[in-house]
């Protein structure tokens, strides 16, 4: 990467001093000795070459040049992360000021330090930014994009993104041009195209800044997805406008044909980006179908295909951001049905990690670049820009909402509009685009200064005040809800109900097309892209299994029964009243069998296996099976004690009394079975869908046959039990974790692990 080498042209000694100062200034005693060595380093190696006497073999020789570039890069990243760490150790600060502000301030300080020393601070190189720092953030956003709110509001989002950005550009560009015409300002040299170009750079809402700020205020889903979706989708418009105005500025004149071509270009850029993303997404999904034997490299496919999508579309000057998002969205449902649970976790954490690092680096570099960059300050221009940004954003949002509300069921209230307008933050993309402006523009420095001022204003002022304003206006916050199976059932029920009622009305509406898409997806697409038999599995089952899995994992984490059900309510409270009458002899047999089951379970512990290529069964699986056994044991013990208590109420009734109500008894035992199998649902099939011959699976299957013997002893419907148990075997074989639901659940899983 050329960025760093060209940024430090000074001599090595100065670099070492800078590094020392930086570290000391931040109070880190790391590697204090290393720089000391380096000062002798190269001289030392020269000496040994030159003297050529019989000196001892150089035990310690240091060659800094050899590692210089990666060393510097690693140093910067480490610095950024230590800063981030530092903020969260100061609790009050992080509660008041958003992280992005703090990072920019740090960047300013570091840049100031470097300048004080006399070195040139590095500027945020645009190539570095667009090719390395931006993609992880966008991929993270796209992969975890909450699909349902996005698709429900896609019309609104598109209107804001396209028409809103166009409005901002022309409004600002036009008014600034008018401003420059005024004699007293002294900016007569700025022509209309340059102003429009400037307008196009500064008018786009920035996804990085929006993410950074909105993540901390937990606003309700609707507003969040509106602002966020807009920031992602306006990339196409920005790209087109920027390139368009650059071209025009070069040529100098604009014809009607050019404008028309510009419009065509917009469609090509956006739809082309979407197409490229979709292609790579399907490729990734298809590849993941075959990865059942090489689980370790699964996450890499996701990352690489997405990155390739981004690069390919950048190559053709299409919208890279849209390609990346579409790729993530398209590949996610299929990839997650195919990959193992561990790969899913890996992907999630790597994406979060990279995007976190990128974001931190971007903000720090923004600060540093501010100190570094060539500045040309013009009070009128800059102040007007800032004011115009605000004004045009507010006008745009109000005007567009007025039109959009005519078409929406859920109208946007004034509060929503305010947050959408206020949340239109500008960020590093605007800066990088401005930096990319060629030096031909004599106003380049002025533009850069204005852009930086706008960014600072929006991030600091708007970023800091948005949280208290949200509190003040009592805007609806995000509902922190646990995944509830009732809600899930009813969401599914509602979907079908509304589709049905639309059918009755004869109206081909929203739900109708969604249903058609789902059916198409299920019959054709999933067949190709999902490995094994899993493509037939409906979402509700997947959700239920995921919940069970989470409970099991929570138990492993906390070592006790999950507190999701804090009450003492258990299955026996909701079962229909009829309890089977059992004789004393039978009761003894039951107890004996239950106890022997317990013994058997204790003996079935797997031995560990470690293999580089299979990454089989880790501690987690052992723990889960251990926990499952514990849970089963507890259940059994409780059951036994309950039965013991109940026995005292029982009358011994002959068998034929029971037969009139076989359904009820059947119900009881099956649900008993279900309770057991509910424990075993989060089975060890984390890895593969194919019938595994692992010892653990065998142990489970061996466990199951015990139950029919229990049934048989209690005049139970044996046929039913064996059907049940066959179903269970099938079910266990097909046990997979699908992740269906959206960000709430993702964030919840984050809580035990991550602090930010």
């Amino acid at each position: 990467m050329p960025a760093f080498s060209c940024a430090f042209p000074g001599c090595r000694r100065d670099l070492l001093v800078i590094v020392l100062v930086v570290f000391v200034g931040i109070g880190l005693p790391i590697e204090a000795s290393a720089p000391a060595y380096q000062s002798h380093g190269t001289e030392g190696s020269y000496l040994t070459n030159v003297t050529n006497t019989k000196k001892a073999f150089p035990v310690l020789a240091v060659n800094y040049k050899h590692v210089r570039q990666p060393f510097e890069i690693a140093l910067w990243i480490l610095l950024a992360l230590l800063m981030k760490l530092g903020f969260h150790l100061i609790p009050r600060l992080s509660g008041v000021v958003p992280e992005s502000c703090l990072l920019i301030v740090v960047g300013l300080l570091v840049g100031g330090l470097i300048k004080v020393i006399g070195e040139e601070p590095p500027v945020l190189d645009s190539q570095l930014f667009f090719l390395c720092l931006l993609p992880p953030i966008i991929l993270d956003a796209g992969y975890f994009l909450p699909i349902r709110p996005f698709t429900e509001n896609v019309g609104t989002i598109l209107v804001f993104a396209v028409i809103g950005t166009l409005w901002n550009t022309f409004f600002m560009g036009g008014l600034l041009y008018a401003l420059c015409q005024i004699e007293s300002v002294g900016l007569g040299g700025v022509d209309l195209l340059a102003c429009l170009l400037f307008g196009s750079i500064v008018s786009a809402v920035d996804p990085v800044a929006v993410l950074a700020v909105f993540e901390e205020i937990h606003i309700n889903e609707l507003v969040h997805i509106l602002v966020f979706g807009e920031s992602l989708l306006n990339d196409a418009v920005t790209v087109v406008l920027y390139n368009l105005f650059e071209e025009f500025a070069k040529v100098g004149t604009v014809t009607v044909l050019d404008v028309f071509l510009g419009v065509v270009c917009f469609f090509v850029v956006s739809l082309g980006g979407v197409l490229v993303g979709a292609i790579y997404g399907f490729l990734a999904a298809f590849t993941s179908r075959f990865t059942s034997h090489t689980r370790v490299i699964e996450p890499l496919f996701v990352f690489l295909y997405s990155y390739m999508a981004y690069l390919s579309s950048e190559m053709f000057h299409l919208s890279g951001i849209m390609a990346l998002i579409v790729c993530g969205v398209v590949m996610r449902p299929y990839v997650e049905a195919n990959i193992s649970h561990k790969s899913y976790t890996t992907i999630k954490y790597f994406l979060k990690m990279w995007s976190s690092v990128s974001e931190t680096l971007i903000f720090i570099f923004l600060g540093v670049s501010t100190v570094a960059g060539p500045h040309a300050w013009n009070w009128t221009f800059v102040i007007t820009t800032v004011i115009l940004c605000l004004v045009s954003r507010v006008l745009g949002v109000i005007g567009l909402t007025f039109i959009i509300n005519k078409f929406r069921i859920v109208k946007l209230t004034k509060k929503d509009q305010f947050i959408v307008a206020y949340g239109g933050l500008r960020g590093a993309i605007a800066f990088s685009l401005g930096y990319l402006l060629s030096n031909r523009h004599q106003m380049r420095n002025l533009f850069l200064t204005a852009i930086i001022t706008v960014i600072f204003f929006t991030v600091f002022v708007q970023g800091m005040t948005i949280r208290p304003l949200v509190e003040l206006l009592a805007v609806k916050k995000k509902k922190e809800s646990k995944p509830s199976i009732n809600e899930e059932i009813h969401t599914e029920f509602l979907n079908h109900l509304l589709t049905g009622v639309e059918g009755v009305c004869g109206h081909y509406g929203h739900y109708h097309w969604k249903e058609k898409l789902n059916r198409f997806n299920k019959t054709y697409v999933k067949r190709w892209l999902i490995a094994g038999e899993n493509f037939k599995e409906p979402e509700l089952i997947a959700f239920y299994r995921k919940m069970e899995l989470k409970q099991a994992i929570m138990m492993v984490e906390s070592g006790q029964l999950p507190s999701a059900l804090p009450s003492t309510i258990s299955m026996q409270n909701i079962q229909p009243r009829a309890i089977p009458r059992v004789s004393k002899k039978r009761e003894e047999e039951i107890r004996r069998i239950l106890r022997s089951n317990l013994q058997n379970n204790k003996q079935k512990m797997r031995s560990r296996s470690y293999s580089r290529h299979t990454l089989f069964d880790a501690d987690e699986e052992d723990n889960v099976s251990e926990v499952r056994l514990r849970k089963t044991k507890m259940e059994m013990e409780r059951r036994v004690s309950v039965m013991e208590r109940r026995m005292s109420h029982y009358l011994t009734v002959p068998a034929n009394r029971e037969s009139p109500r076989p359904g009820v008894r059947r119900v009881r035992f099956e649900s008993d079975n279900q309770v057991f199998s509910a424990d075993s649902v989060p089975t060890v099939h984390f890895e593969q869908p194919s019938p595994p011959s692992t010892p653990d699976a065998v142990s489970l299957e061996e466990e199951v046959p015990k139950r029919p013997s229990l049934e048989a002893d209690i005049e139970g419907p044996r046929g039913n039990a064996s059907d049940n148990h066959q179903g269970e075997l099938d079910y266990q074989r097909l046990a997979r974790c699908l992740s269906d639901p959206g960000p709430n659940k993702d964030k919840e899983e984050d809580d035990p692990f991550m602090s930010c």
Partner: protein
Amino acid sequence: MGALQSLSDEPEYRELAEKTGFSFEQIGILHKRFKQLSHNEDMLRRADLDTIPDLACNPIRIQIIEAFFDKRNFHQNGDGTVEEISFEEFLVVMSHFRPPALNMTEEQREKVRREKLRFLFNMHDTDNDGTITLEEYRHVVEELLSRSGALGKETAKGIADAAMLEVASISMGHMEPDEFYEGITFEHFLKILKDIEIETRMNIRFLNMDTMTLCK
């Protein structure tokens, strides 16, 4: 087209509009659809709704059709089912899917929410005893998963049991092992579904727009 019709039926429409809250145009459109479904008769039967091709692959088709013939949804405090319905009753059932108006107070929204959830509750509570028992809930989940074959049936029981457990713990909190949770009452139902914002989700978009295309 709609305008001509509404002119002739105006007094009737006015009454219907007041009762259900639809606009004249919407009533006209729905009346046309009603006539189309019932083959120009005055009363609609189950068989007429059965023939709609779009409903054929809907897993809860039967429940949906039953909902139209369920007297509890006619807002007249009746119960039981009927064999055929008039246009007015059709419209009343449809009015459950109207979105709430923009300028509603919190109370009115609450009322709308209760009404919609009542509709859902009636769909689940088939024996009309005021509670959704475990059996009824199992039946609901089974129908939802009815397209997944044998696998669906087994898991349906597990899912329904887990769901019932959840309702019981949220509504009752603590129960002795000997106590028995009879079933989900309407109040409990409201409680567990209060987070899904049903007044914004249970709406048919078309009923909001003035222009539409009658397909089929």
